[in-house]
């Protein structure tokens, strides 16, 4: 077995092993360290001799390393208690408990005491089973940065005394929202890279979708989990049509809709149906907007009135200037650019999206449709200066050039 085989087993087993070890030791940081030691050992020994049961090998080795670590730490009297516990350690994982433990692991990795960067890194590492190198590649940061985030994160959790348990009922919904937002941040990094020379990074988006599917399987009664999964599936369904052969972005109106991934759309619609049981939350509403696009044969034939209504609802449950801006775009399609421009100008007057390239992008577009070409060009050039993604920037400059 080679490195890739070890990584494959680890991807499947990571969450369960770290969860079971955290439950056993009560120490998330120690469990993660022990699990990483087991992987490191597997990378050395598996190429020489493949174990008959790789998953069992990893779990047993990680447990031994965890016990070693506790032995190094504990005082003599505690060792007897630990030795007594040893026999129980060899038992198989209880399938009923492990689901709750994996879920508890997600809650710990996304705990509010952690910095947003640490939440993302820990979730991908312990729940997703990614290496520091893979996480660094996903977020275009140096490997030591990822390692530092993980080390600091584990210390923060220990220092705050975060318990390994499902959050109490009163906090459950709020904490679940925290987990969802971590998954969404990962997805967004893949669907609109904030930096770098590529617009889409489907491998990063895939990690988020996988996490969302896991969460949906473990929390099937939570509509917003299905809402987020639907949003991710429906957005990813458009990936094949969103960039040209040279990697340049293709706008919705110019996309070849035959290239949209029909099976991903079906999965997204199925998840959306599960999200719709009790009125839609913010993710469900965004998924409903994506679904409206997904079922439209063209931009012109899109139900823009419905999209305006959905953005209005989204603005009520999760008010944000970005939602306002998107509502403006939908209003432009449903009722014309003049009404939309009023919404954008209001956003600018209240300075709610300072420094964003999106505001001048939309404003430029609306001005162009109103025939105010010099103003439109100035706005698009401003947008290009503010935009961090090289691919998007060149599209903006090309568009500005057509207005001169």
């Amino acid at each position, binding site marked *: 077995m080679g490195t*890739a*085989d070890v*990584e*494959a*087993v680890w*991807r*499947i087993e990571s969450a369960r092993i770290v969860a079971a070890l955290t439950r056993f030791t009560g120490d998330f940081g120690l469990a993660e360290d022990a699990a990483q030691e087991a992987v490191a050992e597997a990378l050395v020994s598996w190429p020489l001799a493949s174990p008959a049961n*790789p998953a069992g090998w990893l779990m047993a080795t990680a447990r031994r390393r965890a016990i070693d670590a506790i032995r190094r730490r504990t005082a003599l009297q505690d060792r007897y208690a630990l030795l007594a516990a040893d026999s129980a350690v060899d038992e198989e994982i209880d*399938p009923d408990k492990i*689901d709750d433990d*994996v879920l508890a692991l997600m809650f710990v990795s996304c705990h509010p005491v952690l910095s947003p960067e640490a939440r993302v890194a820990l979730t991908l590492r312990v729940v997703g089973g990614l290496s520091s190198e893979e996480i660094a590649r996903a977020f275009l940061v140096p490997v030591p940065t990822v390692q530092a985030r993980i080390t600091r994160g584990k210390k923060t959790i220990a220092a705050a005394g975060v318990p390994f348990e499902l959050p109490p009922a009163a906090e459950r919904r709020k904490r679940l929202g925290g987990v969802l937002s971590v998954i969404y941040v990962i997805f967004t990094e893949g669907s609109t890279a904030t930096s770098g020379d590529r617009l889409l990074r*489907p*491998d990063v988006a*895939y990690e988020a*979708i*996988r*996490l*969302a*599917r*896991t969460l949906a*399987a*473990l929390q099937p009664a939570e509509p917003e989990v299905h809402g987020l999964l639907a949003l991710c599936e429906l957005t990813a369904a458009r990936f*094949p049509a969103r960039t040209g*052969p040279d990697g340049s972005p293709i706008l919705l109106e110019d996309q070849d809709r035959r*290239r949209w*991934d029909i*099976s991903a759309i079906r*999965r997204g619609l199925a998840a959306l149906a599960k999200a719709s049981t009790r009125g839609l939350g913010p993710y469900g509403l965004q998924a409903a907007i994506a679904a409206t696009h997904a079922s439209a044969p063209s931009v012109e034939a899109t139900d823009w009135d419905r999209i305006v209504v959905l953005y209005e609802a989204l603005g009520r449950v999760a008010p944000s200037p970005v939602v306002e801006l998107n509502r403006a775009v939908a209003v432009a399609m449903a009722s014309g650019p003049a009404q939309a421009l009023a919404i954008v100008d209001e956003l600018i007057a209240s300075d709610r999206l300072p420094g964003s390239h999106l505001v001048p992008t939309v404003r430029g577009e609306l001005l162009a449709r109103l025939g105010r070409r010099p103003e439109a060009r100035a706005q698009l050039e401003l947008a290009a200066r503010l935009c961090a993604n090289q691919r998007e920037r060149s599209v903006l400059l090309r568009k500005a050039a057509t207005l001169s």
Partner: protein
Amino acid sequence: MPKYLLIMRGTDESNAALMANIDEMMATTRVFIEEMVKAGVLLAAEGLDDPGQGVVVDFSGEAPVVTDGPYGETKELFGGFFLLDVASKQEAVEWAKRVPAAPGSKIEVRRVPGDDEMPQVDE
């Protein structure tokens, strides 16, 4: 991301072994499917009916010829599939190793190419 199809290929003997333990097989398969769902990798899974109930549409001649199953000389019969959305070929293989398959059967692991790998025709 790459999708992989795990194709179950049984023989008469392995199918007989499977049918002899059908209840146990169904139960372990259900657990296995749940595991894949919780790992976020399962897109679809189906098992097929007895090949004797199938038909074969043969395109050897000018017009398609329909004959009743079974397939004649074929030694291994396609009995079902799992469609997985995984990170790597190695992961697909690792899942394949965990399929509760009857002794004597085989699982073929085949990649589903992405849209961007399909030959593009300019229109």
